[in-house]
């Protein structure tokens, strides 16, 4: 046996320092949870938890104030629902096209374009939603007075939804394409050998085989849509109401947080604490989505790698 000539204390110190860096990530999560829980408990001492969870009137500025979180939870879900109705077909369509139809040259142009789209700051997308999608796309194309009509409204859920949809299309497209590309070629070749068309191979063979990855991409996209702030602040308005009507102005959880917690709001006030209570709801919703997505991704990696 060879032995080191010195005890090498420096090595241990360095390993310890590196471990501290890694532990910092756990501390971040702990800090998030602690900073959410404290004021949230304080909030529930003033506002009964039942009124918060089951109430649908969100009027913190009234006297007496009402904190029924359903109004802004449904606001968030409204935007998320319409965003997904746009982003799932567009994102999955792009993924199938890239993985099953596009030649290498087409792929080399489209993939970087989608990466650029994924890198555009959301404040720019929010500006685009409120100053182009709303006045130049939704209002001219909306059928008259359908659902209350779209003309004359400066903010609406649908404008924010389409902006968020545009933002999450690259997420759905790239993760789904990865999952579809991981499907072994033998499966496709087998189907082609039986005389199946490309469409049949894509829909009946590749799509089911890549399903867990595809679902993971959609779940991650939903999580991003729930937590998106700037697009809803700019385009969806600030009218808390529990509706799924796409042409109404709504308030999302994130925009309540962003609008209320700016500037020097007095720490310890009920308004201040309500920000943390809403933050807790949002954090739990996205956490559930993330856990599901991580599990699904692990599953499809296990099957084919």
């Amino acid at each position, binding site marked *: 046996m060879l032995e080191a000539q010195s005890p090498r204390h420096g*090595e241990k110190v360095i390993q310890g320092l590196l471990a501290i*860096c890694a532990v910092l990530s756990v501390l971040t*999560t702990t800090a998030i949870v602690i*900073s959410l829980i404290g004021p949230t408990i304080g909030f529930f001492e003033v506002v009964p938890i039942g009124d918060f969870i089951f109430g649908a009137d969100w009027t913190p500025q009234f006297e007496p104030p009402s904190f029924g979180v359903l109004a802004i939870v449904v606001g968030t879900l409204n935007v998320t629902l319409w965003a997904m109705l746009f982003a799932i077909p567009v994102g999955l369509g792009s993924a199938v*096209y890239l993985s099953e139809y596009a030649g290498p040259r087409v792929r080399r142009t489209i993939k970087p374009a989608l990466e650029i789209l994924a890198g555009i700051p959301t404040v720019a997308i*929010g500006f685009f939603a409120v100053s182009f999608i709303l006045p130049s796309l939704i209002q001219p194309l909306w059928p008259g007075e359908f659902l209350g009509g779209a003309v004359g409204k400066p903010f609406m859920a649908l404008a924010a939804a389409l902006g968020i949809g545009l933002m999450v299309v690259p997420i759905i497209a790239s993760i789904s394409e990865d999952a579809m590309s991981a499907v072994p070629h033998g499966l496709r070749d087998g189907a082609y050998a039986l005389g199946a*068309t490309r469409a049949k191979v894509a829909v009946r063979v590749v799509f089911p085989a890549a399903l867990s990855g595809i679902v993971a991409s959609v779940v991650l996209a939903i999580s991003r849509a729930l937590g998106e702030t700037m697009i809803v602040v*700019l385009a969806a308005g600030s009218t808390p109401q529990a509706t799924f009507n796409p042409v109404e102005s709504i308030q999302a959880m994130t925009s309540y947080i962003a609008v209320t917690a700016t500037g020097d709001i007095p720490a310890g006030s009920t308004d201040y604490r309500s920000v943390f209570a809403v933050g807790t709801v949002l954090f739990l919703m996205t956490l559930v989505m993330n856990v599901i997505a991580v599990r699904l991704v692990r599953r499809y990696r296990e099957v084919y790698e």
Partner: protein
Amino acid sequence: MIEGAGATRNRLAVAGARATTAAVLSEQPRRDVLRNAVFAGLLLLAVLIALAGLVALLVQAFIKGAPALSADLITNPPSTAFPEKAGYRPAIIGSIQLIAGVIVFVVPVGIGAALYLEEYADGERWWNKLIEINIQNLAAVPSIIYGILGLAFIVRGPLDLGFILAAGALTLGLLVLPMVIIAAREAIRAVPDSIRQGSLALGATRWQTIRSQVLPASIPGIATGVILAVSRALGETAPLLLVGATVFVTFDPTPFGADGYSALPVQIFNYALRPQEEFQALAAAGIIVMLGVLLAMNSFAIWLRNRYEQRW
């Protein structure tokens, strides 16, 4: 290239089988052929909608922002009274300092965490698994939650820094830290084990091996990850709203100044909220500046990756 030959053989077999099947059945059912064409058309439409969204966003920013594009945009502070002379000077200076702060925080901590997880940690231990799951989840926490963390933990609470630029930089640093760790781990993992074994066999210690072999070989990958993380931090708005980046800062901000600070996306947001045509143009022009900087950074990252990437 056994696999390549196998694939070719497969493809030949498939082509043969197809030709035979086609000959036997004389032709595919007409309905299937039609459906195939419609399906391909729909897929192409989906791609075109996504690309059209991107193009429309860029074109609209240029058309709207063109009237406000001038040197004033970079050299002048914001102004409500004279929108035609208003600019982004304090916001740009604030963003540069924020980014510098993010880099100072994220580079050592991110690389350190990645090195620990790849070079030292035993992946079977529960605490290492915990760290792993944690980083995956942190990467998907909404940015506004990081704003709440910054408000409760960094601005007030334990760190109690107050509404200063350094608090904003630390908040953004925590936000992009998981991205840096994930990218750095991939770069470190790509260094083949034979390099490490060679170094250790020559009598180098673990840290000497990392410092002189592993790190130099993975620097391009790590740098690419850091640049992408920094470009994410540059465009983030929501968390900064909660940790004190305020709207009308007309002086040049400093890292620890208590008078407040601003950042490029926050100033864009503020102009975008004002309905007057002049402010809308300013917002669009600010978006052009921001997208220009981001494009330059990302192109540099891609160039870096292609130029220095090692193939083992």
